[in-house]
């Protein structure tokens, strides 16, 4: 991938008149809100090309919550931003794969959707809640104005103050009239995150991406915000793509879990499968490092070593240099995916049937 190709991608995305056939598509399963298939997202940096998502595939069923977990820097945010087409431009680009978003009557392949169509989807069909409530709201605009803006854009030409206050009420802000006139700096972090949630859910999106929505908040506030997110999601029937590195949040919220490592999905399954039958050594390590009530904090497990340099990844299991249980097989090429159940998929040589270790049995 050269800079020239990057500019070409950028140009294609900014093209004005793109025929619908280029980006309208069919869902593989119409019960899914989102299907990500072989997504490849790159950052073209001066040091080289960072493969932030390297063949990521998973589905988000309608009305369900899928948690994406993994260490910091493993590409969770880049994956979420790819779905919104909000990667930092022009260096961040989706270079391959498909991101199918189900709108009920039609489906968009976001990887191919041009910017001027994407504008109509953002905030309406798919919206995002960001990690930093302190900086994610415009400091020089009132809360009311920021809320009303989304409504005016997608719902009614003239959204009224009443609508906005109703939204504030929906996210549990009692003094809606007062907050409407306030600026972000007048509110606490938790309140700001409530405003962000109100903004994200104001147009009943099919999918909400929440990127570490509670990481920056106090523990007590975290629980309230998660509770709010959960109840609103059920009320509106939206699917949630929850990005987090907090397994407590996963247990609380998620139906399915996707474990990412260095830009790839190493394991995915239902919450029960991931929590009780984890098959990938990295997932097992994550589970062990989760603080549990009753276990002294000193003995908290940490996975040794660090995430490999995302530029020029080698063609063997990315986790190999940190893995406790590697075998000779692990020196081979990157392990293919093995289907352990309908929902449980893992990429690890340990999960291969003994006699057939070259990955021919791989599922998906």
């Amino acid at each position, binding site marked *: 991938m050269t800079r020239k190709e990057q500019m070409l991608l950028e140009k294609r995305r900014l093209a004005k008149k793109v025929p619908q056939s280029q980006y309208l598509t069919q869902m593989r399963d119409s019960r899914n809100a989102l299907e990500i298939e072989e997504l490849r997202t790159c950052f073209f940096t001066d040091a080289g090309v960072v493969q932030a998502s390297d063949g990521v595939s998973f589905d988000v069923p309608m009305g369900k919550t899928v948690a994406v977990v993994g260490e910091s820097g493993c590409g969770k945010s880049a994956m979420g931003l790819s779905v919104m087409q909000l990667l930092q431009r022009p260096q961040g680009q989706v270079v391959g794969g498909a991101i199918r978003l189900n709108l009920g009557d039609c489906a968009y392949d976001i990887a191919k959707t041009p910017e001027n169509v994407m504008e*109509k989807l*953002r905030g309406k069909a798919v919206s995002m809640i960001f990690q930093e409530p302190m900086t994610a*709201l415009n400091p020089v605009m009132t809360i009311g104005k920021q809320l009303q803006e989304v409504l005016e*854009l997608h719902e009614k030409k003239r959204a009224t103050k009443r609508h906005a206050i109703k939204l504030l009420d929906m996210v549990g802000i009692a003094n809606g009239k007062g907050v409407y006139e306030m600026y972000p700096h007048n509110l606490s972090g938790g309140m700001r995150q409530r405003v962000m949630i109100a903004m994200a859910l104001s147009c009943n999106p099919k999918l909400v991406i929440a990127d570490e929505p509670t990481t920056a908040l106090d523990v007590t506030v975290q629980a309230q915000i998660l509770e709010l997110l959960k109840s609103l999601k059920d009320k509106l029937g939206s699917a949630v793509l929850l990005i987090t590195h907090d397994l407590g949040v996963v247990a609380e919220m998620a139906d399915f879990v996707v474990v990412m490592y260095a830009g790839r999905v190493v394991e995915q399954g239902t919450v029960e499968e991931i929590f009780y039958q984890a098959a990938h050594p990295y997932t097992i390590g994550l589970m062990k490092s989760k603080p549990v009530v009753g276990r002294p904090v000193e003995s908290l497990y940490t996975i040794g070593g660090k995430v490999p340099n995302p530029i020029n990844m080698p063609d063997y299991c990315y986790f190999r240099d940190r893995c406790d249980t590697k075998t000779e097989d692990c020196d081979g090429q990157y392990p293919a995916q093995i289907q352990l159940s309908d929902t449980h998929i893992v990429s690890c040589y340990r999960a291969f049937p003994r006699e057939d270790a070259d990955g021919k049995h791989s599922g998906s």
Partner: protein
Amino acid sequence: MGKYILKRLGISVGILLVVMFIIYALLRSLPASYVETMAIQLSQAPGAKPYDVWVTQLNEQYGLNVGLVQGYFVQLKNLLTGNFGDSWKFAVPVTQKFSQVIGISFVMGAIALVLEILIAVPLGILAASKQYSRRDYAITAGALIGISLPTFFFATVLKLVFSVKLGWFDLFGLVGRDYPNLSPWGKFWDMAAHLVLPIITLVVVSVGSLMRHTRTNMLEVLQADYIRTARAKGLRNRRVILNHAFRNTLIPLVTIIGGSLPGLFAGALITETLFAIPGIGYTSYQAMVAGDIPFSMFYLTFLAALTLLGNLLSDILYAVVDPRVRLG
């Protein structure tokens, strides 16, 4: 708010007193001594008193026979009581000379500043909103050329093209040859025509830095999380920039522009000299070279006071554009 302004004013006055002392001390130690120059001239007249006698007499006459500190307090008392004294060089009251020349400098500077803002801010925003595009490169390169052009060179090129080759404007001066015979409107247009080239010079050599400031600020703002939030709402690029980014870039711009307001009274030394415009820049230069302490003292104190006031003003303006700043 009122209390804050009072406090800031108090601090500013303190700073001003210190600055005035420094100015006075510097002027006293200038190598160009008005008194010595005059003593030389007087002693050369036939049958005059010798140089030393003249120096002593003149020093006494001009109040230079006292120490720095005492002299400073005498000056301070005079300034505070509104007695600004007479200019040594121009032999008229300081305020009279000042008010004669400040008007034209102010008009020139103000027009140039307004033009600068009107050109630099939109161009800076245009450049930033499409970073690394051809448009961005063109604007940035233009700004850089403006910044690196020396005033005297650019003014000379302008003169060559528009005065010598095309003959559209006079080479220098504030008014034309037959100014006294013109009607009031004719006089106005005559003066305006004479200001065109100096103002173009001022704008071209200084517009670049404001443009670069605007571009840098805008780029910084465009990286902010709230801009990503605005995009996540589905706003178009235009609206993101105009509704969300622009007001945030105003905050630093207000400081820069507020800080440049006192410059309107400082005059433009080089440009005024090149075009022989009798403004404050040119006049203060003449006064300084002649060692004219009353005039220089008045001019520099005035500028210092204005700078302090400008800072105070931009802090207050800050509070107007940025709701987070509540002066208390």
